[in-house]
């Protein structure tokens, strides 16, 4: 659990949109393989990434709540989508819409691997998620992880959305800015 992570610089780098930004881990989150663009983006050498825990890339701004939801889901063998702020080797960061799939052993049906695919997110989505994460993080720090989870659920309840619906909305977020949606907000 003792991972020495770089100090964040606050500098954001862009996720390439035309390349496959993929990583594959074992059932405990140890990196097994990664696409070339993922390796380049991370700033680490491939050899440094392989067998390292994926949490090497965890940015300190990320709330624990999100990873709790992530692992609860993955350990049950279910896929999940999430928005992540990752930390590179030199301390820069990138935001990614991440979609994680679960691979099982064909014979034993045991969970073998998780495969994560990343795509860039729209700026306004990033801003609203960053604000939400900041709030959850603060609640976690002043209260508890449980309070952070409750806060996120309350946020989703307010929108009358489940987590997956919310992620889907964020993924399609760029289209929600038209006149019609503004007009709808009046009612």
């Amino acid at each position: 659990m003792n991972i020495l992570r770089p100090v964040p610089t606050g500098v954001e780098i862009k996720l390439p949109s035309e390349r496959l930004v993929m990583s594959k881990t074992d059932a405990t989150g140890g990196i097994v393989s990664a696409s070339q663009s993922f390796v380049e983006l991370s700033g680490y050498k491939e050899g440094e990434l392989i067998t390292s825990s994926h949490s090497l890339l965890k940015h300190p701004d990320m709330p624990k709540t999100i990873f709790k939801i992530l692992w609860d889901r993955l350990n049950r063998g279910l896929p999940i989508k999430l928005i992540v702020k990752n930390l590179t080797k030199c301390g820069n960061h990138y935001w990614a819409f991440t979609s994680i799939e679960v691979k099982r052993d064909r014979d034993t049906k045991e969970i073998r691997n998780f495969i994560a695919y990343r795509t860039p997110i729209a700026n306004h989505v990033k801003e609203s998620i960053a604000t939400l994460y900041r709030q959850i993080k603060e609640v976690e720090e002043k209260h508890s992880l449980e309070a952070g989870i409750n806060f996120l659920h309350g946020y989703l309840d307010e929108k009358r959305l489940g987590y997956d619906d919310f992620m889907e909305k964020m993924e399609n977020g760029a289209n929600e800015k038209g006149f019609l949606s503004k007009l709808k907000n009046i009612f």
Partner: protein
Amino acid sequence: MTQRPTPTGKEIRLDSKKHIVSKTDTKGNILYANDYFTEVSGYNKSELIGTPHNILRHPDMPKAIFKLMWDSIKSNQNITAVVKNLAKSGDHYWIVTDFDIQKDPNTGAIKNYIAYRQAAPKKVVAVIEPLYKTLKEIEDKHDIEASFEYLTGYLQEKNMGYHQFIEELAKPTGMAAMFFEAMKKLF
């Protein structure tokens, strides 16, 4: 016991398009508050989380109304109620509340309440304020039972339940109602 601010008598004008949203457990402890909640109440999110919702209770509010509200939502009935709330500064704001009641999908037991509040229209406050003043006076001189009885009589005379009474008061009239109905048909 909750330490509440001293009322200033100053009213905070609310944005009629915005909702003040919170989620509580069955005891009324706050689990989530949205941005407009913190903006209006003057408390930040970490202060609100874990605190009983009655931190916002204005001393002018009759106990009978809260009893009515709690009796209703505890029995799984939404209620539209008009409430005068106390901000951290001691200023107050009038709201109309609406609830979502969340139940455990397995046991059916109530788990959470999500409250959506909007600015109470002036014409509603004009009728409600003197009524609450009377109820409060009765409570101070006698007890909550006496004020409850008065409220029951008041509503009986109007041939309405409290919920219906508030909805009637809040109904748009005249041009506004016509516009509202016409717009609703568009969507």
